[in-house]
């Protein structure tokens, strides 16, 4: 082995180790989730007790807690929010970026100006309004505020601003109307940008904690973040079970991330460069 490639390998290993140290809490979570409560703070520490692997934490979480209900709720809320957000973003983005209408530029500018407003602020009157309308403590209270997302609309708008006019003109020539040419030509070509927005939105909405915290009371509507919190409050000393629960909460997003990692990274980059 030549000297330079030896140096390359050793720095590579060094940075890999730094990466491992960075996620130590998560590795510890994984290790602890397979231990008995008495071993959680054991000294000396051992990563795995081969032959004494405790699967009961997972069994308890899956069978004796409402984890599966929380999971179902998270899936429903996240998927519905993402779908509605995509539908609104793509039509609005096409309108603001391609079709245009009177004052569309000014309206869009006003929307952009509100991007930095703290969400904790707008949720205060929404709480009162939802209570008034009677959708407080329903899934709709979680889904509705997610529908209009300025950043998503911005990304679609950018895409359609540079969209070749000829493609749509050709569709008009063939006799398609405005809506028809959107569905047949413009929409299919926006697939990549929609997948990008969908992916980023999925991770963001899956993670939401403040909204269910203030909008939900009924335990059977809890999403994973709020369910986790309720478990932690109720079973503060059941550390190994908490770790199994945290693991189960992380696994679905981790699988999606690992499967679509390249796409995810590109999504973040495209959202950042344009946002």
């Amino acid at each position, binding site marked *: 082995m030549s000297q330079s490639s030896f140096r390359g390998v050793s720095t590579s290993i060094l940075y890999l180790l730094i990466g491992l140290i960075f996620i130590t809490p998560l590795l510890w979570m994984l290790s602890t989730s397979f231990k008995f409560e008495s071993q959680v703070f054991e000294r000396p520490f051992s990563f795995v007790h081969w032959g004494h692997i405790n699967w009961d934490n997972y069994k308890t979480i899956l069978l004796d807690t409402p984890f599966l209900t929380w999971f179902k709720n998270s899936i429903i809320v996240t998927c519905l929010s993402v779908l509605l957000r995509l539908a609104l973003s793509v039509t*609005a983005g096409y309108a603001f970026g391609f079709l245009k209408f009177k004052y569309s530029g000014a309206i869009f500018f006003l929307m952009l100006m509100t991007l930095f407003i703290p969400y904790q*602020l*707008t949720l205060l*009157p929404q709480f009162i309004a939802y209570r008034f309308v009677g959708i407080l403590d329903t899934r709709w209270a979680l889904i509705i505020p997610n529908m*209009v997302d300025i950043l998503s609309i911005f990304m679609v708008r950018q895409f359609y601003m540079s969209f070749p006019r000829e493609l749509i003109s050709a569709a008009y020539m063939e006799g398609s109307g405005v809506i028809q040419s959107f569905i047949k030509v413009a929409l299919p070509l926006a697939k990549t940008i929609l997948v990008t927005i969908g992916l980023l939105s999925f991770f963001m909405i899956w993670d939401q904690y403040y909204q269910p915290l203030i909008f939900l009371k009924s335990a059977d509507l809890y999403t994973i973040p709020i369910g986790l919190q309720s478990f932690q409050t109720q079973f503060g000393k059941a550390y190994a079970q908490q770790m199994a629960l945290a693991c189960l909460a992380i696994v679905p997003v981790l699988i999606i991330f690992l499967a679509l990692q390249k796409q995810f990274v590109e999504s973040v980059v495209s959202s950042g460069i344009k946002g």
Partner: protein
Amino acid sequence: MFVKGYSLERRERRIGLLFALPTVIGFLVFILLPIVAVFLLSISKLDLMSNEFSWQGFKYYSKMIQDSDFWSATRNTALYLVIYVPLTLALGLSMATVLNKKLYMRGVTRTFFIIPYITTYVATLVVWNVFLHPTDGPLNSLLMSLGIAHPPQYMVDRDWALPILAIIGSWKDVGYHCILFLAALQGVSNDYYEASSIDGAGRWQRFRSITLPLISPTTFMLLLITIIGGLQAFNQMALLTKGGPAFSTTTLTYHIYRSAFEFYDFSYASAVGMFLFLLTLVIIVINWQMQKKWVFYQ
């Protein structure tokens, strides 16, 4: 043809309005109206039980100014920003610099760096809560076995709690910064480096006088995102410390949450919310003005 084009343009505008309408209504109802409503709430009193409503003028603002908890929350938010913003930016840039090198297993290292960013926040906080357990937690066991007799008490110690929450916030978010910095670094053309190595510039000098200016638009954008994110930090306080010990981690966002949803004082919470809104606005405007001094657009 000309006539047809004209009517088509009108049709496009009509459909455009139709397409944008749901979003514009949603924007008015869920973003613009709430901002007006927060202001109105802050100068009135609405009893949620009896639905009684009365105007109160700027009473809640003067209550806010006289409230020592409000001032300590402002201080805590400022301290959080002072730690969180530079730490996240520096860490993100360092990680991206590492990933920009030719490394073996670079993909794996990158995955490790990004994982906290994609994992469920509350789940990681549940883990941190046990990981930093002051007496038995794995980190302090390690420190004690290394001969440190009195390791930090983290979330139980009023001097440590807020910095620790800021560090956890950084740890969680830095993957995003890492990805964007890496994209910016990869966009820097090699020609610049080659030219400078002929001039005999050292590595640090090259980084300072070539890399940093060339990626400054990304840095500026991330700076704004990080400041906004820092001002809105909430999860760690709600899950790990409940604003304690001794209010040391009660930031403005947590103060708003407690006022509204524990004491049901929406008027006061709205007044503090307006303050947070103005604070965000001022910080953004100042940074926007300052960008001329250090951001280079090619």
